């Protein structure tokens, strides 16, 4: 499903125009980004929880340079799927 189809499907279900849905979803995503940047986590019921964590500097290997490199500190987004979603999909083998 492409992004356009995703917005259209959501618009049909909510009985609004796709532009409105797009505006709302993009606004929501911007707020979620800000929340994560402020070092807060949040939960989307049925999907899971999201948070940002700091990964300290570590030693890695650069395949391009073919040398060990010291990777800098980075913030990463952590995700924990919600239990109902995990349970629903745990044993369902999906072939794309």
């Amino acid at each position: 499903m492409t992004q356009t189809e995703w917005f259209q499907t959501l618009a049909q279900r909510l009985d609004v125009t796709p532009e409105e849905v797009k505006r709302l979803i993009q606004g929501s995503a911007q707020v979620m980004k800000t929340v994560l940047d402020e070092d807060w986590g949040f939960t989307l019921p049925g999907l899971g929880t999201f948070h940002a964590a700091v990964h300290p500097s570590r030693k890695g290997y650069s395949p391009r340079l073919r040398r060990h490199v010291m990777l800098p500190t980075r913030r990463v987004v952590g995700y924990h799927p919600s239990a109902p979603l995990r349970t629903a999909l745990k044993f369902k083998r999906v072939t794309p």
Partner: protein
Amino acid sequence: MKGKLTFLDLVSRIAGETGQPAQRVHDCLTEAVRLNEEELSNAGRSAFPGLGHFSLKWHEARTGHNPRTGEAMAIPAHNLIHFSPEAPLRTFINRRYSRLKAKPIKEKGASDRASGLRRVHWAWLVGLLLLVLLLLVFRPRTWMGRPAPPVAPSQTEEAAEPVALTAEESPTTVEPVATTEAPVEEAEPVAPAPAAGIASAQHTVGSGDNLWSLALAHFGGSAYWPLIYQANAPLLDDPDLLPVGVSLQLPALEGRPLALTESDVDRLAQAHVAVYRAYRRLENSAAVGHLWVAWHLRSGWVEGQGLDAADLARARRMPGKPELD
């Protein structure tokens, strides 16, 4: 992490920032989550625009161990849900770390290799410097036609076999010198030169003498040995060979080395041409070198001497300038 926002907190914040009713935001997010769940279940992957992608990763059944008891246990095949944040989100939350870049680590092996290469480079550099120094100290003077130091055989060797010379230009043998000539005593200077110049003198050739060393002792510059040869040409068949016991005239100079008069330069050019002719006759390869020096000293005069045109052309083509030290 400071904490977690509840869904209602998140909805109210989104509603506040987008200006939409909270109920609409709530419905929209709930429906979006449901759509994602269906998409994940059907296609194995879904996306929340602006946040990231979700995907299912299938893990085959395997045998694991209970970490508490250590007993083997069968882990059934199962899915894991993976989330990959979008690049704009990653960039946004990493703004404060964006200036940090990955830095290569100095590895021991690599540094050893690098230092090894450096050592090799240093070895080349030192070798090159030594070569340059050696060339500076022992710079070739083929144009001088320098006679070999051990030229004249000693008195005891006169009757012996010809002596092999180590002269760089003419490794010829020494003709036995007529020993019937009585050694000539060194004489007083016969023609006093001007005070600024060098007076003429006479010298009896002894064992080990050569024109080069005689010029160095007499003129203060070994490059002037052709003058001695020219003054004694009838006595010397080969400029590289001096018969022991022969009395040589050491000519005068009006000037001094590096401060020659015009007359001295004329004579020096003539002397070099004389050496050129002698070497040419002896088929010595140093002949053209002397022509080169003479041509540099008095080119017009040399070209008017009717010398071999090919030799003259070679002399003209030779690079550099002679050093009269």
